[in-house]
């Protein structure tokens, strides 16, 4: 191979990497440009706190912010104990053979399409919620969406938790075993104290996954535009708002507001990524 092909190949590799990296910036740029009519007027932050009432020319997305916060927070509340319990099971409390099966099943769960969760939510979960809680109205509410969402985010959390467990120095585990620790003691005294960065990472990633999902909330949270008062209220998330409003008139101010929603989601995600990377650097045995 000649020097020229060497150089060409290298340049192609570099350009690909640069283009891929720029993609993240490009997405941000487009959101910024299109959201500018709202942001430029210095209205961005006041919008965050305002209600949504297009009839009166109000395009605040406080309802969507609270909707997203309520649904994703509640889904983590459901998913966290499930995920912690499952990862403890795989970390020595359950029989090794079953643990391997559970591990495979959890990885399979990451591949289940979210639209299927939404679809089954409508026809299986929502009727149950409607029957159990009379005040839930149609059954399309924060509770239904978070329950379904917790199944979506659990595998993400479990995989990151398990990463944290596996990164515990094997010598610590050996020491504990040789000193007569049983599987519970090994877990509580040695693994959990060492695996916390993995656990925090898992929670952040789970929260990110919950906030970023569109279909489940769109299909079974009801999409009402008001600040929810209880978990049995219908609510609209930032993601469903984008999906719903994008169908309207391109030049309306309501339409512009979805870019502000997009920006908010983008920025939250970027913060989560940076936090997780910081945690990742802290990992490994303290020496």
């Amino acid at each position, binding site marked *: 191979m000649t020097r020229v092909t060497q150089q060409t190949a290298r340049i192609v590799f570099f350009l690909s990497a640069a283009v891929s990296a720029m993609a993240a910036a490009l997405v941000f740029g487009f959101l910024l440009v299109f959201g500018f009519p709202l942001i430029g007027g210095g209205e961005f932050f006041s919008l965050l706190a305002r209600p949504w009432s297009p009839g009166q020319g109000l395009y605040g997305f406080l309802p969507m912010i609270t909707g997203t916060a309520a649904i994703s927070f509640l889904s983590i509340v459901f998913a966290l104990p499930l995920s912690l319990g499952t990862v403890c099971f795989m970390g020595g409390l359950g029989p090794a053979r079953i643990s391997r099966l559970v591990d495979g099943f959890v990885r399979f769960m990451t591949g289940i*399409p979210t639209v299927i969760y939404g679809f089954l939510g409508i026809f299986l979960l929502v009727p149950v919620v409607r029957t159990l809680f009379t005040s839930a109205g149609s059954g399309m509410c924060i509770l239904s969406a978070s329950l379904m969402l917790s199944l979506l985010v659990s595998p993400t959390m479990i995989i990151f938790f398990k990463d944290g467990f596996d990164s515990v120095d094997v010598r610590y585990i050996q020491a504990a075993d040789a000193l007569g620790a049983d599987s519970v003691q090994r877990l509580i005294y040695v693994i959990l104290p060492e695996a916390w960065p993995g656990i925090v990472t898992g929670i952040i990633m789970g929260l990110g996954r919950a906030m970023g999902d*569109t279909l489940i909330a769109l299909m079974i949270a009801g999409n009402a535009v008001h600040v929810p008062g209880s978990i049995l209220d219908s609510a609209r998330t930032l993601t469903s708002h984008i999906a719903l409003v994008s169908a309207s008139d391109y030049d309306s101010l309501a339409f512009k507001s979805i870019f502000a929603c997009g920006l908010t989601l*983008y920025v939250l995600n970027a913060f989560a990524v940076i936090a997780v990377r910081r945690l990742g650097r802290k990992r490994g045995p303290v020496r």
Partner: protein
Amino acid sequence: MNIRILGGCLRVFSWGAVLVLTGSVLMLLGYLLVKGVPSLGRDLIFGQVDVLDAVLLKKRVFDGLFPAIAGTLSVVVLSVGLAIPVGVCAGIYMSEFATVFQQRVFGLMFDILAGIPSIVIGLFGFSGAIFIHKYISKDFRPCLAVSVVALAFLVLPYITRTTQAALQGLGDQTRQAALALGATRVQNIFYVLLPRSVSGILSGIILAIGRCAEDTAVIMLTGVVATAGIPGSLLGSYEALPFYIYYISSQYTDAAELMSGYGAAIILLGVCAVLFFLAFLIKRHVAGPAGPARGRFHG
């Protein structure tokens, strides 16, 4: 608290968590299968049209999933096809050429891109379409091409990351063997490193295919519609399985339509399951039949 009682509680709790988690997912999937399997069949996909006529595009299928399956297939093939060359090349650069500083900056950008909610990627594609509509061509609307580009953005970081990881996972011995024989760095990459990491890269690509096939949020903003027939051009709208499922769930008019929604969900789930097991098999192949050596007591 007494460690014995605490331990007992923890054991019960972990069993409970596993049972609730796997139980509820199995129940959901079981319900889907029980309700949907009766709808599976030739008619679900091709309606009243003859199979051969439909596949050869002689007759248009109105009451079957064929156009949606064709749409999903084209959007997946095109977007993964677009993302593979760029993603693999970027992964090679990250693993073999990037400086520590570049690895850090590019790595951060890839992580951000990988984490962007898919609806926001969809919004990006959508705004790109508006941009072209406003400034370049008034005829331009959200269409197959826009979806393809946006989905390629969505899966690009997966492919880059798995390529990078597969290459970095190769040992120094593999890495230096050809170099010692006088190979250039680029020759080493193409003749030794890439062939050795092909299974790792492949399993990343398969996961990317699954991600493209199941995504609904991106395509619903970038050109998918409920009825468009077989995708005819990159600039036209198209149908897709996941969008069909979403659409039917709120717009179904009779029991038969709802049944086809269940059928579509089973097909989509089946596709994702097959892709998952394919990736799993390839990964296991990489690790060797007995799994990675984990000898603790071989002194």
